[in-house]
């Protein structure tokens, strides 16, 4: 197998959207936007290596659904995700995602930053054709707590869970998606998906010896999304602009078994992007996501803008066609 050096890093957008008012953001590995694994190789198996970068600006202070001004805090999350997909055949595919995370928290008096390896996610996907242009994709996966969750500030105090690169918990993810190519008109593709992430409790947050510490659980998460892209061919490049809508629900975080105040809520987001495929072996994508509505529990800071780029390299590209669905 020919291996070319590019570890096309998928920068994973660490979604910092679930933000608490007194304790903010959800840390750990980003998952829900990186699920899909293209399975468009006609014959044989192949590897795809990807790198995503995403910058998540968390600068909007919201009280339930009312925006407030004069927030002294600025949070941001940067994620660099390495994604390796193994497409076994037209039905089965597997993926591993390993993020590198930078969390930053800034006020007028201080800036704190924590970075490191996040949690590893392993996914399996099964695709079943439902017709000539439609397929069902079912994914299941687990997030393994390999990430660092013991970052401290300069006084030796453990940073809050949402500032840690890792979570310390085994979490589980599932997704069902329907892909429809040539949807209504030729070259228009639709992907509609429902995803769920179940988070478990870290019983020893802040204690590397795992004897004390405190119990903390990030809220579970559900996402319903639909997106469209349209294929153009420009100078032999495939160009696929895309847009969609995503509805997200997060349950409140839990501290010591009790619901943490100012956490959880509902969001509606609009992701927009454009993907380029110059040949069978390479794909680039740039995207931006806008939150257009939120109804949050209590006072929280939340995402005001998210931008990202993706690069993906397909090994032995001669065994596959360029993905016309733009979903890889």
């Amino acid at each position: 197998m020919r291996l070319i050096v590019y570890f096309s890093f998928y920068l994973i957008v660490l979604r910092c959207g679930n933000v608490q008012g007194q304790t903010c953001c959800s840390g750990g590995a980003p998952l829900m936007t990186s699920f899909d694994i293209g399975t468009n190789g006609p014959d044989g198996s192949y590897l795809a290596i990807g790198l995503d970068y995403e910058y998540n600006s968390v600068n909007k202070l919201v009280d339930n659904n009312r925006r407030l001004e004069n927030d002294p805090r600025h949070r941001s999350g940067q994620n660099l995700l390495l994604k390796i997909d193994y497409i076994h055949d037209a039905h089965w595919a597997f993926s591993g995602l390993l993020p590198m995370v930078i969390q930053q928290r800034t006020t007028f008096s201080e800036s704190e930053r924590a970075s490191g390896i996040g949690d590893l996610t392993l996914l399996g996907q099964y695709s079943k054709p439902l017709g000539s242009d439609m397929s069902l994709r079912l994914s299941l996966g687990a997030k393994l707590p390999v990430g660092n969750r013991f970052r401290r500030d300069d006084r030796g105090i453990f940073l809050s869970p949402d500032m840690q690169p890792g979570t310390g918990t085994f979490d589980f993810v599932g997704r069902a998606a329907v892909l429809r190519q040539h949807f209504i008109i030729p070259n228009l593709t639709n992907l509609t998906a429902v995803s769920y992430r179940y988070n478990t409790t870290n019983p020893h947050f802040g204690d590397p010896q795992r004897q004390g510490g405190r119990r903390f659980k990030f809220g579970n998460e559900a996402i319903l999304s639909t997106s469209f892209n349209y294929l153009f061919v420009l100078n032999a490049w495939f160009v696929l602009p895309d847009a969609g809508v995503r509805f997200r629900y997060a349950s409140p975080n839990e501290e010591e078994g009790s619901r943490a105040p100012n956490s959880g809520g509902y969001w509606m987001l609009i992701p927009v992007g454009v993907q380029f495929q110059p040949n069978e072996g390479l794909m680039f994508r740039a995207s931006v996501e806008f939150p257009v509505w939120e109804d949050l529990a209590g006072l929280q800071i939340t995402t005001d803008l998210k931008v990202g780029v993706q690069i993906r390299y397909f090994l032995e590209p001669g065994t596959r066609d360029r993905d016309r669905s733009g979903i890889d």
Partner: protein
Amino acid sequence: MRLFKLSLLLVFVTIFSCSKKGTTATRKWLIPEGQVRDGGPGKDGIPSVDNPQFIAVGEVDFLQDDDLVEGVVYKGKQRAYPHAILDWHEIVNDDFDDISYALTYCPLTGTGIAWDRVVDGQLTTFGVSGKLYNNNLMPYDRRTDSYWSQLKLLCVNGTLIGTEAATFPTIETTWKTWKKMYPNSEVLSKNTGYSRNYGVYPYGGYKTDNDYLLFPNSINDDRLPSKERVLGVLNKGANRVYSLNLFATPKVIFDTLGDDELIVIGSQADNFIVAFRKGDLDGFTLDLSQLPVLGMDNAGNALTIDGRIVEGPLSGTRLEQPISFMGYWFAFGTFYAGIGIYE
């Protein structure tokens, strides 16, 4: 290719760069480091009010009668700081006549304490560090960036480590009682420079749920329900709490705490408890019909809620007051292990 590899190396170095180690001074703590929690917002993520504005009692339109306020009475003038605002800012740096204090209030322990802002001979302001110790606010002073424990009244980290906080007396009561006592007082305005939903409590059912604490405490003392409001009296090393429930019928308690005889007066209906060193008072008959006057002793000395004697042979003097402030029981049980409960 070489440039790509170098770029990759730089990316990894940047991403894996660790947080600052800090100086020796910043890593030494007088409290167990492992029990200090990062609350989440970061330093000054909860903004203090540093330029407080005040309005007249008649201009207040955002308080209900049973909303609590922290009051300061000084040289015949009075200021009230509503919990409705303190819940969102936790510290108000104020200059009142010839004194400067930080009105510190922790919503999680329910403790309001006015700290002298002259520390080590120099004026400073205090901010919210974003850290918590046993669920209690940890202010920091902006002159030295030292961290303090509100309930220990002590600097626990930084160049001022070991310095004790000096306090001014406060009165915690309801808005209804306060405006009856001091109709000409000043009240902290909502014009803080920040837009917040003042009047909406930001912690849900925390105030009344006895089983709900945000973080574990180092000591759990269940002799009283955790959120029961008590007056904690700290008298030169001898400490005791007096529950507001004791004063379902307004009463006067004479008690001995350490080397001092105390007079403790409270009313659950009017929602206050105050404690003074008895001094030369001769008995006391409670009469709350003329608040802020609390009543009179056998010699005709009339005592006010802020400790002044306004009538009688001792008129013009004031009773000494031990450090005392209201709060949730669990906070006193944790910070002052084994503290006595008046029964």
